[in-house]
């Protein structure tokens, strides 16, 4: 991981956030 994303807990946070980002991005395909 890059600097600033060192600890396992931080990596978990980033993984969670990236999963949310993918879901949010794809779901927005159905925005008007």
């Amino acid at each position, binding site marked *: 991981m890059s600097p600033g994303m060192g600890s396992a807990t931080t990596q978990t946070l980033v993984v969670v*956030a990236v999963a949310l980002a993918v879901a949010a991005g794809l779901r927005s395909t159905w925005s008007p």
Partner: protein
Amino acid sequence: MLGSITPLGERGRGSRWWVTVTAYVLGSTLAGVAVGSSLGFLGSSVAGRMPVTARLVVIALAVIAGLLVDVGSFGLRLPTVRRQVDEAWRAGYRGWVWGFGYGVQLGAGAVTVVTTSTIYVTWLAASLSGSAVAGALIGTTFGFARAIPILSVASVRRPDQLLHVDAVLVRWAAPARRATYGVGAVAACLALLGAARW
């Protein structure tokens, strides 16, 4: 948006679809990078004073609260701007200009109509990520994922094909909504497990 950038439409406007799409995806991704890294940087002072486990719990709670709003619990409705991209741009500007402009607006996430709480939670997570680098990674992912479905209309060269795309979108709307809920639930569980584990 998918129906707005098709080879059929771009041919009619005298533009090359791949140029418009490249600008669109680039604009969306760059906007995601800009918003994500900015939030990561701005939030780092607050995030730095919170244990990561506490941040994970906050994100999990935000996901759960967002899901409750998304399904309309307690009569709640998701707050959003009503703004959409300006349709007139397509007639007034070159393809790559309006493509990039549309991408920037949509990749920013919340400057046009927001249909899912996961957008807000994604930006919250970027704010709590602790650094501009992590925020940029989160924002890049959002911006790219927001734009890349446009490739699904790459073969639309006739009006009936566009109607087919619309029909597919309608058919997949409900499953996509449920899938988003599912990802949110899994993300919340993972965040709570991560907080408990460490």
